[in-house]
């Protein structure tokens, strides 16, 4: 019989999440012309019910360990629902549906596989599955091209992006592979002065896997995913080996590749030009329009924001998926934006702490890699929104509108909770 765990801190935090979601929804609804109608509370309340249901699920299964990740993910998702209500209310029901599916995926990931180490045993299966998923948008019938990027797969009316799932598979594969690689590395280490010489037969497959991912994304013209995969690869390599040299080479490759991409691909050049001169006369009304409006939204935010429902986000094209952060910052100000960033950092920090305590190398690499995914996604999109780096198509985890992203990120949370649970069982924390 599985002992039920109490998980009180998690329960307490979820009440706060509930309050946050309801307050936000009320504020947005009341600011609308139609005013606040009580039936609009259905959405946030439904989500809170889902969140509590997940909590009860975890408690009933006797899941031990971390109690912070679920509330933070729930808080971010709740904020996301408030923002979708504000920015694209016609998509609200759809986003809630995806949240429900994400909750289901979360529960499923908690339940299976029964033994997490099975993940490491089937690494080549995951690699193959990942490649297939990556290639699927290129298939004739089900592949869809949207805004110049061929990264979507559609089944009927439902579309999703397979590369979101691939990022998880990639981390699992790298974690499993590098666990073995690490052992080999510690045995056959040769160096030319400060430069490590990796044993090539072992280095080969991992570089090949990474190269396949990169090439496919370049082919499918998704700048953001390409950047993400490169980042994941470098991070996992650093986590496993600790060699800063590989990271340096990787960054060099990025710059060189970026240089060639700038000259070879029009859309890359356009993005970089917008980043460098968004206010130039010939750019600001054309390709730079979105970013310029986003920056104005930030400037309008000030310290405490214009107030929920009081900003002017409809000036920004496709604001609900590409520029949620700017729209949020306009209405809650620097104070609110900082709190949001702090939530993400707390999430990542907790994930890294889970990784530190994990009992095996595979689990350490897995947890750290998963936390890194959330960190890098957040940094890349917020950086793009604030003109620190060129804009990419990556969306803000949990908050931005987008089904595939929501589902895979909740699965990510489930995996981290499982690692924490396993650690707790072995080491004996409640």
């Amino acid at each position: 019989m599985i002992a039920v765990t109490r998980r009180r801190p998690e329960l307490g935090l979820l009440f706060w999440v509930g309050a946050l979601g309801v307050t936000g929804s009320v504020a947005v609804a009341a600011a609308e012309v139609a005013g606040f109608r009580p039936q609009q509370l259905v959405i946030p309340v439904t989500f809170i019910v889902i969140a509590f249901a997940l909590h009860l699920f975890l408690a009933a299964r006797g899941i031990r360990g971390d109690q912070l990740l679920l509330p933070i993910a729930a808080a971010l998702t709740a904020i996301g629902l408030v923002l979708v209500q504000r920015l694209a209310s016609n998509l609200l029901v759809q986003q809630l549906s995806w949240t429900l599916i994400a909750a289901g995926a979360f529960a499923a990931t908690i339940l299976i596989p029964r033994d997490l180490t099975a993940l490491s045993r089937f690494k080549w299966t995951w690699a193959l599955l990942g490649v297939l998923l990556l290639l699927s948008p290129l298939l004739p019938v089900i592949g869809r091209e949207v805004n110049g990027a061929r990264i979507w797969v559609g089944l009927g009316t439902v579309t999703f992006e397979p590369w979101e799932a691939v990022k998880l598979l990639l981390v699992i594969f790298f974690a499993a592979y590098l666990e073995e690689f690490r052992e080999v590395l510690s045995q056959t280490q040769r160096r030319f002065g400060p430069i490590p010489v990796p044993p090539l037969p072992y280095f080969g497959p991992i570089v090949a896997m990474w190269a396949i991912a990169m090439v496919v994304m370049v082919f499918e013209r998704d700048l953001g995913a390409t950047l993400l995969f490169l980042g994941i690869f470098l991070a996992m390599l650093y986590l496993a080996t600790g060699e800063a040299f590989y990271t340096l080479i990787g960054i060099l490759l990025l710059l060189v590749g970026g240089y060639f991409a700038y000259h070879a691909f029009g859309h890359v050049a356009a993005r970089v030009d917008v980043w460098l001169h968004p206010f130039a006369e010939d750019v600001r009304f054309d390709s730079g329009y979105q970013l310029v409006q986003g920056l104005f939204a930030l400037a309008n935010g000030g310290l405490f924001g214009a107030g929920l429902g009081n900003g002017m986000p409809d000036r920004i094209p496709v604001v609900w998926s590409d520029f949620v952060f700017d729209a949020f910052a306009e209405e809650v100000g620097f104070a609110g934006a900082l709190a949001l960033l702090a939530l993400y950092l707390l999430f990542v920090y907790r994930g890294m702490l889970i990784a530190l305590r994990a009992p095996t190398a595979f689990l350490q690499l897995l947890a750290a890699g998963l936390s890194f995914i959330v960190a890098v996604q957040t940094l890349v999109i917020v950086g793009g929104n604030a003109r620190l780096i060129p804009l990419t198509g990556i969306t803000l985890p949990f908050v931005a509108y987008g089904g595939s992203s929501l589902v895979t990120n909740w699965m990510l949370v489930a995996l981290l909770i499982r690692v924490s649970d396993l650690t707790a069982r072995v080491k004996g924390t409640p």
Partner: protein
Amino acid sequence: MTRSIAANIRGLTLTIALAFLVTSIGVGYWTLVSGEELSADPFNPRLVAAIRDRPRGIITDAANNKLAESVQTANGYKRVYADKTLAHVTGYASFQFGASGIEAAYAESLIGQDPADPLSQWRARYLRERVPPGSVMLGINQAVQQAAVAALGNRRGAIVAIDPRNGAILASASWPQYDANLISDPATEDAAWKQVNEDPNKPLINRVTQGLYPPGSTFKIITGAAAIENGVDPNAKVRVDDPWQADKSWGTYFVRSSSRAHGDYTMADGYRLSENIYFAKIGLQIGGPKIAEYAQRFGIGAPSRCDITAAKGQVSRTGALDRPTLIADTAYGQGELLVTPLQMALVAATIGMGGVMPTPHYANEVRDAEGHALRVIAPGPSGQVINPETARALTTMLVGAVEGPGAFAFAAKIAGVHVAGKTGSAENPSGAPHGWFVGFAPAEAPTVAVAILLENSPKGGEDAAPLGGRVMAAALGK
């Protein structure tokens, strides 16, 4: 031995934390610091507010004729402009492309949040109460404006007329024009925007305030003023022999006289016959720094105080006049000088007003919805640029430049009124010289000062002078 994974995790976490810090600083910059910088940008959200969703204030001319108003359509409000010739002044107001001209400069007043009424700003931001906007009244005089537009016709250039006593701009015409209605109408804005931006004649530029041209002989007014106040006797005769150079170091460069003159010239002659060599000589006599100083004092190269942004112009590329050939060239109005027609009109006005330069402004008054004046725009004079005696002396000489025997600016004469003025034919790299005329009337107590600029006009200043006469006549009610 390889590092422990735990150590690597710690290193990676630190890197991530630093990256978050940098990102927060970046976000902080845009939310907290950049607000000032962006507030002047036409895309500022407060400026584009109330273009589509609410009616915007009315823009009128001095006689309260409506120049711009909001009209309700199926999708909200759009701006409609009654007088197409004032498109450069009123500007356009488009939800997509922002605003320009008066629509941008007085945007706050036009959405009911004029700075003179701070309470309205608070109420709008925090209580969401919108004060119904009033109107912005410009100083444009319909009769003078129509005369200016008719005078300019289809020739590229600009005409501006100001009241030298208070700086109100009575007429402002710039060609080529564009139709602001097309840009402010959501149905046509995309096509219209593309068209005006791709037009090589650049119709969007308000040539009165933003057109930069070499002033040609009209700059001699400034040279003369500088000379008189720095020890040059205007009655002293200076030998003029065409062509002229100071010494052999000038190589193949000579100052040419437009009338192949050989004789002794006083300053009055120099103005009447627009003699380049005279002014080159006295320019060298007082020196480059003095000329640059007086040019600055007259506003060239200095930021404009007009309520619509105007170009600064320049005395030279570096701001200094260091080479003798450059000094000579600049003294008679070429060199590297670049000025706007507005600046030259102000020069004329300054002379007419005894050396006091007015501050130009398009708008005269901001009114509330009931028609009461909220704010009167009367910035007062910019300062005393030259002595009243200098101004009087120059006025006399400039009257001579219009009325005297053989005067180049004779076509600017108006019956029954003494007109002071100066023509100019500015050499420029794009072909025929630009034709200038600046002047004011009546000379003894002027109520109007004009600047005419015709781009690439075959007879230069001679083409511009009659236009000056017509516009000033209209202003005087003739």
